[in-house]
């Protein structure tokens, strides 16, 4: 079988057929690339579609679950991780994946994000990080660089930025990685890594919003922006050999942090067993 045909077969197995396409995303948007990587990762892991729950909040990226043929929960702005925590804790055998954006996860949802990391609950979060609010029309986000332009930063952004990777590590997540929409095969591997890890996993995925961010900051079309992402990305193995000055203006990709720690639902399960053993 030709690779193209195989790939198409996989996609059609995991996408919802009726009424869902064309999608809401702009031509050239990175969201579709992430969706493809997620589908291939799930296919590689041979998950039962009935056992996968994809939860999202509000924003461009959060529209992804509608297209995916799993159990899908499209929730309120910023709250996907809190809903997902309820789903996972209620039925720990389910594979719970959260799709979120930088505004959804880090601004309105920042509190839920750090606490989901802290609990180390077994949820894999794919944060599609395009440095802007797309759906509402190009407002600055917690990841918008200083000086960048946005509709609510018409004179340049005068705020500082979150680094979601550092935030997740500092908050206790077991698996923290960064990928990009250019490095598609790496992204797929990172998603597989996150799904395979017991505990909270973050895959911070650098993406492009040429429609708003690119236009307002003169970074060109989708191809130009993805090309720039390619040039700024440095694999962690390579980064370890580079002096800090050479890393200026770049970002590190790959598995940035991984550690083994007890998982929230497992902790609770062992608590219940302890109580039962004591007859209490």
């Amino acid at each position, binding site marked *: 079988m030709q690779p193209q045909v195989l790939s198409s077969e996989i996609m059609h197995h995991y996408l*919802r057929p009726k*009424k*869902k396409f064309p999608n809401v995303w702009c031509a050239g948007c990175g969201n579709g690339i992430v969706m493809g990587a997620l589908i291939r990762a799930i296919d590689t892991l041979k998950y039962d*579609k*009935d*056992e996968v*729950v994809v*939860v999202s909040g509000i924003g461009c990226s959060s529209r992804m*679950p*509608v297209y995916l*043929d*799993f*159990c*899908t*929960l*499209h*929730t*309120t702005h910023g*709250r996907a991780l*809190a*809903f*997902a*925590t*309820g*789903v*996972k*804790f*209620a*039925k720990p*055998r*389910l594979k719970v994946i959260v799709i979120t954006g930088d505004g959804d996860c880090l601004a309105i949802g920042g*509190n*839920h994000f750090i*606490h989901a990391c802290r609990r180390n609950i077994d949820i894999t979060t794919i944060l599609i990080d395009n440095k802007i609010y797309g759906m509402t029309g190009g407002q600055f986000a917690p990841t918008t660089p200083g000086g960048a332009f946005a509709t609510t930063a018409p004179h340049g952004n005068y705020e500082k930025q979150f680094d979601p990777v550092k935030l997740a590590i500092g908050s206790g997540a077991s698996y923290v990685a960064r990928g990009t929409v250019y490095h598609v095969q790496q992204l797929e591997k990172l998603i597989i890594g996150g799904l395979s890890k017991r505990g909270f996993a973050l895959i911070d995925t650098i993406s492009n919003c040429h429609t708003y961010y690119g236009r307002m900051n003169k970074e060109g079309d989708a191809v130009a922006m993805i090309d720039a992402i390619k040039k700024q990305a440095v694999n962690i193995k390579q980064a370890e050999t580079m002096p800090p000055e050479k890393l200026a203006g770049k970002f590190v990709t790959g598995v940035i942090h991984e550690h083994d720690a007890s998982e929230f639902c497992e902790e*609770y399960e062992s*608590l*219940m067993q302890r*109580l039962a053993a004591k007859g*209490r």
Partner: protein
Amino acid sequence: MSEYASAKPMLLQGNEACVAGALYAGVEFFAGYPITPSTEIAEGMAREMPRIGGRFIQMEDEIASIAAIIGASNAGLKSMTATSGPGFSLMQENIGYAYMTETPCVIVDVQRGGPSTGLPTKISQADIQQARWGTHGDYTAITLAPSTVRGCFEETVRAVNMAERYRTPVVVLTDEVLGHMREMMVIPAPGEMEVYKRHKPDVPPDWYHHFEITPSLVSAMASFGDGYRYNISGLTHDQDGFPTAQPKEIKEKLDKLRTKIMRYADEIYRIRAEMMEDAHVAVISTGTVARSALQAVKMAREKRIKVGTIQPLTIWPFPDQPIHDMLKNVKKVIVAELNMGQLVQEVARVAPRTCEVLFLGRYDGEVMAPQMILDKIREAVK
């Protein structure tokens, strides 16, 4: 084993009775955030849930708490949270999500004085209209308001049953005094009170529509992991849960949210009326005030005043027709409540023209003593 699985009389707080009621009704998931005067409910759940194989989680705030119970409910567990005014305000957006996604869940609001931080340790009934209109948009709410410790138990059981039966959030409104007051009660034996089990689909996955408009108007509900794959969205959606912009589908959805409750109004309503047979004057009140009202009416009867009490235990949907009918031969009705006039708006809306509506409010953080109500009754018959 749960400490509430006992046939012996127990001296319980209202808040503890809510915990016991939740356990009786089969609640297996509780998410909450500490807030006075509701915290004993979270504490009780933290103690009991792991004992019975249920789940307790203390979330990072009330927004997350209501989100978690909605998530858990969609994963198949009967779910509940408890809070007070400020937390109830924070929950409103996601309560709207539960209405829209027809997710069963129960929210206990132990009322305290407001607005804002208000009076954390003092009583109020000022969340009555918030329970009806707290989240944006059109929907029909069910809210139950007990007045005794035993009532806290019963109304919590009823709330869980209704949430599951009608696929909707249900609010139990209590208050600081009721939550902390202790009374003797015997937990009903298993089977003594009905416990409703969620109606699951009996069709294969290809035939399943998560929001199907059925003759009963309440769709069967699968859970995540049951072998059914579907979309749930807070966006106005079609019968499969996919966003819609079709006027016909939008209207159908909103009509469903209303009619699936109102069609069953008669089974949802619960009203306790005392000494109304020959009453010329009636006192309408809910919650803790209903206790004082009953006492005041007994005192008035000793003075041969023909007065009775009406206590709606179901305050939303407001029992329009039953209350109207009860007031047909009543000349004056006093609506007594711990706020600046919330329930009185409903009574004024439904009272017959022949019945004058009087308001007695108190909002200084104190309980309404029977004497206050008695004075108002005497004024009314003067």
